[in-house]
């Protein structure tokens, strides 16, 4: 059950779950995502409670540009798809394809983050600063927490790409890839809720 006993040569069918360490990691990460769900749930609750307190700042309906947000959404959802391709490559033991798909995922993540930074910069110029109102504080906290998760994911997956290049696909690196993939899906799902609750509802009411 040692982590490095299969390190060279033949890799088991699902290398991410081949060792007890790997199985622990995957289960622990599922549980962690359960906690993250509560974290974002609380942030959403705070936003929903405060989103009508706009005060003198711009109304969400005049502030949000859906075209920009839709583009960001499309980019992030596509990155979720490419991370699935990466996991498929992992299961096919195809290291080259795995690394390439992870690079595509990171690049798409960077694109999303760039759009979000531009969006925030634009809002501040419109008079929608962090301290403007309870609406603005809760908006930046919710969307910013998500953005920080994306940024962390980019650094994390980049570091895993580096490890894959150096160490190859082993029963040690495979759980890392798998768990990072779970993380990436999770922040995508959170974004779907942000798109609905923050932007679409902001446009309607």
């Amino acid at each position, binding site marked *: 059950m040692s982590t490095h006993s299969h390190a060279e040569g033949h890799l088991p069918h699902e290398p991410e779950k081949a060792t*007890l360490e790997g199985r*622990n990691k995957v289960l622990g990460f599922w549980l962690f995502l359960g906690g993250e769900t509560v*974290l974002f749930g*609380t942030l959403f609750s705070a936003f929903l409670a*405060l989103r009508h307190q706009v005060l003198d700042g711009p109304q969400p309906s005049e502030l949000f540009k859906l075209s920009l947000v839709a583009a960001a959404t499309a980019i992030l959802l596509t990155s979720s798809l490419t991370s699935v391709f990466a996991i498929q490559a992992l299961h096919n033991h195809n290291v080259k394809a795995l690394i390439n798909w992870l690079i595509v995922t990171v690049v798409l993540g960077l694109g999303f983050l760039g759009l979000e930074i531009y969006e925030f910069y634009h809002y501040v110029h419109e008079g929608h600063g962090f301290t403007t109102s*309870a609406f603005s504080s809760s908006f930046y906290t919710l969307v910013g927490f998500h953005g920080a998760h994306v940024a962390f994911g980019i650094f994390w997956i980049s570091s895993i790409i580096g490890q894959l290049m150096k160490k190859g696909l082993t029963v040690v690196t495979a759980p890392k890839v798998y768990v990072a993939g779970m993380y990436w899906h999770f922040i995508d799902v959170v974004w779907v809720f942000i798109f609905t609750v923050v932007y679409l509802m902001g446009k309607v009411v």
Partner: protein
Amino acid sequence: MAQGHAVKRYSGLMDWLTTVDHKKIGILYLIAGGFFFLVGGLEALLIRIQLWKPLNDFVSADTYNELITMHGTTMIFLAAMPMLFALMNAVVPLQIGARDVAFPFVNALGFWTFFFGAVLLNVSWFTSTGAPAAGWTAYAPLSGPAFSTGHGMDYYVLGLQIAGIGTLIGGINFLVTIINMRAPGMTFMRMPLFTWTSFITSALILFAFPALAVGLAALMFDRVFDANFFDPNNGGNAVLWEHIFWIFGHPEVYILILPAFGVISEVISTFSRKRLFGYSSMVFATILIGFLGFMVWAHHMFTTGLGPVANALFSIATMLIAVPTGIKIFNWIFTMWGGSIKFTSANLYAVGFIPTFVMGGVTGVMLAAAPADFQYHDTYFVVAHFHYVIVGGLILGIFSGLHYWWPKMFGRILNETLGKWTFWIFYIGFHLTFFIQHFLGLLGMPRRIWTYLDGLGFNEMNLISTIGAIMMGIGTIMFILNVVITNAKPQNAADDPWEDGRTLEWTIPSPPPEYNFKQTPLVRGYDAYWKEKMDGHKGMTPAEPIGSIHMPSPSILPFTMSLGLFITGFGLMYSRDWTFITEHIGFYVAGLGLLITFGSMFLRSVYDDHGFHIEPEELEDKGVKA
């Protein structure tokens, strides 16, 4: 298989700073939690000295506010939680027949983040603006920048945030450990009840602490970055804080009490020499309490004005919790019924727990009746109630567990005579302190007041309460004395020092070797060790041949990761004040701290821990040196 990796073995202080052994981490939790228990106890004594007579001026009103805030915060987060984690770390892996927890590194990280958060919070005492003073519940807008000027509440939000991270990852670690690391045959419905309650407590931690993290982050943003979450002048909502705090805070009280239920179940069963009565109903009741614990947070807010419908629903949900709790009480009594009971110190605490906790539960149901609660709210009746469940429940449970598992943790049995004396003094002192407070509350004495006028009929009862508190203080000192005396004795506890051990931890040496089990045991039923005893076997049937054992390497990174967070907390707090060298130097300090933390995480990710192997010829029964 064994590739003979060289492993650094540390000794002395470095050993404790780098350890990833759950037994040593348990001891670290016990030392740190015990220290903060003394700090919180000292704060309690100062509160009681201030209140012993009317119009006393022993401490100032401001200092009093700091004392009650820090007493509550310290006792809940820095004393009770870590002492529970101490028992969980020391016992749970042994009870399920595991060599270690699922994530030994994360286990160490959990301890160090808790420790640095706790230190950060208490540093506030030594600053010019003093300790937090907005109550342990930190209600907005009192806790906001407008009314809590100075840095006291900054220490609260940042210290608890960092300590909370440690608790959260500790919870995840125990969940995975219990799900994945059980020995062959240790099915869920054969797990000892302490393991079960630790499991449910960990699940509650997982789903409750992130809410606190968000609440603290939002309050921190309000205070440090001028956000408007809880400031009604800028559209914020003060009631939102109450909701966020209590949706964490109510599960928190079940996080605290469930492991104590587990301890009581183990101790009563062992010292009655009987199988725990109604084991499966105990498990079911534990799960039900955990579930209902999330449904009742607004009973802390009956007088906030949520309306009769909300109050009625939360009232009923709260009363429902009395049902599974009652099941547990009867099961403990039926376990003792017809048993051959030995009143050891551990069992005295456990048996003393039952009536005390029932009293706390009864006042709980009284408080759950929303219309009546309008009378009790913010009076000493509430103070009496929650001290009955937390001190009379949790602390008695912890003392019971410490006496019970002390030989397993340290290889020495605590002095029984002194232990019994300690129990009686602490127990009588406890009831003297808090029983009378029910009546103070019913007479109308409000909680959290600095002093009271003469002639209100409060004088004698407050004096009695203070005398009781001093007795509890003497009891605590006697316990420490017992620890010191015991520590001077030879380390000669038997594997099964109580001779009636029922569970797996009593099948291995006291204290256990670092790999716990030379051979993973095969579990053939509930009360695994007792079953083997009854079948005439000397020990467990091994589930594997003797072989080399893989162990994780020690690491300093958990320490540095937590140190980074500590530095970040400081930097954020003083971002506005520190203007030497350049503006906003605090933010650079915070950035440096995050760099240390994330840098350590990067190192952990990039450099694989191959661990090391203990070969069969090295396997001998050497224990944790403590």
